[in-house]
């Protein structure tokens, strides 16, 4: 059973809710970052919601995903809880990573979310590895790796795709082509019209879909998932989409024109999907507004949760390096925390 069945009315409403949740989460994160409350970097998913939700809806709960630096949307789409997500952005102990990861490393391995990733192109090899576990253990699940258009230039993506294709591993590669890698347009990063052309190098199906249309994404992933489960190996999907905000919050966006942004904003994946449901009579305007305010409440609560959560204690910095106890770390921690301790050097 897919996580969210877009063939059903409830499913479609749930998908809409998730897209709205992403939008609201990232709007809030962007504001809080601009206000200096959230440290580090944040990369917002606003505008790309149909890709994440369309894809993760087609997965089952125990399928794996690997994500990117732009991971909030994937997390919410995969069913992660906005509270510990936001707490992680705030670097709090209640965050998914106890404050050690931040926006770029949110993970919930038990939920099949193998981590946002600060390294462009690192996800596909990891997804291939998850698929290898699945394959070797004969499990009935798949892995899906999100990657950006820019990431398609990374060698390790290709090395992994070659491995997955050769071994028929149950993994799906989903390129979110938002037309830029930071400030560089996709045409300056690649020589192909469509990045799904990559599939040809590995003799796997390659397909380009409208990433502003949740249904199109969902169908492509559903099909790819079937292929994967049937032992027919990977599929390479390109979803054409757009990020409405800058690459990171604070980006001056000198590399693109306002009217390009407006053209894409006119195709807002949430508005168009909501309108479709309204047109079909599945959703009333009132219900839509109610949904929006529910989601606002959810994110407000997440924000409050995060803001009032505890800072990790400094000495927690020394935890989690290894499963085993490592004397170096214990010793260095002791030295730093004891304000230096004794001069050592053995006995005089």
């Amino acid at each position: 059973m897919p996580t969210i069945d877009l063939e059903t009315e409830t499913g479609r409403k749930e998908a809409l809710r998730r897209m709205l949740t992403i939008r609201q989460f990232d709007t809030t994160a962007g504001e809080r970052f601009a206000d200096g409350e959230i440290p580090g970097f944040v990369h917002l998913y606003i505008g790309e919601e149909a890709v994440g939700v369309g894809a993760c809806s087609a997965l089952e709960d125990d399928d794996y995903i690997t994500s990117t630096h732009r991971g909030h949307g994937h997390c919410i789409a995969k069913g992660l809880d906005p509270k510990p997500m936001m707490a992680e952005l705030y670097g709090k102990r209640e965050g998914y990573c106890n404050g050690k990861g931040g926006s770029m490393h949110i993970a919930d391995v038990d939920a099949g979310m193998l981590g946002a990733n600060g390294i462009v192109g690192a996800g596909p090899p990891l997804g291939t590895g998850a698929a290898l576990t699945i394959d070797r253990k004969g499990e009935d699940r798949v892995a899906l790796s999100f990657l950006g258009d820019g990431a398609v230039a990374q060698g390790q993506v290709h090395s992994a795709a070659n491995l997955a294709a050769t071994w028929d591993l149950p993994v799906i590669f989903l390129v979110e082509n938002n037309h830029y890698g930071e400030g560089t347009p996709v045409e300056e990063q690649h020589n192909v019209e469509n990045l799904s052309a990559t599939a040809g190098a590995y003799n796997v199906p390659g397909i380009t879909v409208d990433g502003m249309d949740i249904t199109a994404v969902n169908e492509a992933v559903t099909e790819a998932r079937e292929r994967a489960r049937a032992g027919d190996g990977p599929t390479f999907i390109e979803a054409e989409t757009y990020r409405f905000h800058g690459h990171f919050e604070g980006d001056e966006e000198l590399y693109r024109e306002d009217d390009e942004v407006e053209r894409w904003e006119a195709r807002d994946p949430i508005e168009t999907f909501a309108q479709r449901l309204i047109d079909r009579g599945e959703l009333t305007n009132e219900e839509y507004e109610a949904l929006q305010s529910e989601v606002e409440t959810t994110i407000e609560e997440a924000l409050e949760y995060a803001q009032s959560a505890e800072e990790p204690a400094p000495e927690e910095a020394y935890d989690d390096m290894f499963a085993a106890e490592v004397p170096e770390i214990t010793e260095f921690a002791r030295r730093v925390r004891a304000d230096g301790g004794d001069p050592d050097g053995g006995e005089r």
Partner: protein
Amino acid sequence: MASAGLEAEATETMTVREAIRETLREEMARDEDVFLMGEDIATMGGVLDVTGDLHEQFGKDRVRDTPIGESGFMGAATGAAATGSRPVVEIMFSDFLGVAMEQVMNQMAKMRYMFGGKTEMPVTVRTTEGGGMGAASQHSGTVHSWIAHFPGLMAVAPGTPAAAKGLLKSAIRSDDPVFFFENKMIYEQSGEVPVDEDFTIPLGEAHVEREGSDVTVIATQRLVGESLSVADELEGDTDVEVIDLRSLYPLDTDTIVESLEKTGRLVVADESPLSYGTHAEVVARAVENAFYSLDAPIQRVGVPDTHMPFSPSLEREVLPDGAEVRDAIERIV
């Protein structure tokens, strides 16, 4: 070429970031073979705004935005350097060097030797290091110790704007591969920089930033400034000599030894993870060459073998700083 001393030269105040950018500008103007390549260094001016407006002056042919493929473009820089170009590569964050390490370690570093000296490898690799920005584990690494360890590569890491200029000029003019490590927390630090367009600092020279007789602090990057502040605080109490190591490889053993012959006590402060870090090599040089001058155990100040955690309170905990340098000094004087 001008000498390394700053005395009596005309200077101007600039930040580390400006010193790097202006040096790139001067070297590109001076030598047509010099060009820059890296991710978002042209249109965006670099994510940490180092290359800035250079593409406007030199065009996108000489300030090249690359696709996001460090293995490909590091290899291309290596091939270009072997055929008469003088590329300056930017690796946005030093953690990304992992992507390109094959070309670095097996081609760039080895080609000259494997070919019996019959090629030159005039390539400079600029990259940012260090914690302090809340950028978490994959954007905060300090990896210069392993580059310094790898035979065939030179590595420098300036602690001041003047050092940034002088070392970057030497790196670009060098016929060997030189890694230029920029700590991201000192881009805004300012200081006097010689205006001379031929001001170079020899690769392999440390610099005594402050003389002292009680204890030597050998520091790098951000910790140079912090150690100087500590030295000021301790003034009157303890007379601290502060050395900016500047070059990691070659490493200036002589300056280390000279200082130790005077002070007999050593603190090494560097943001590398402690085990197998730059500190250890400085210790080894000291023990090999100044053993009988040493009066106390050498103290190492660095990252306690963790990655950089995201949360600011955790990051502060593991980042070495002036207070730790001070503690280390107090432990041995």
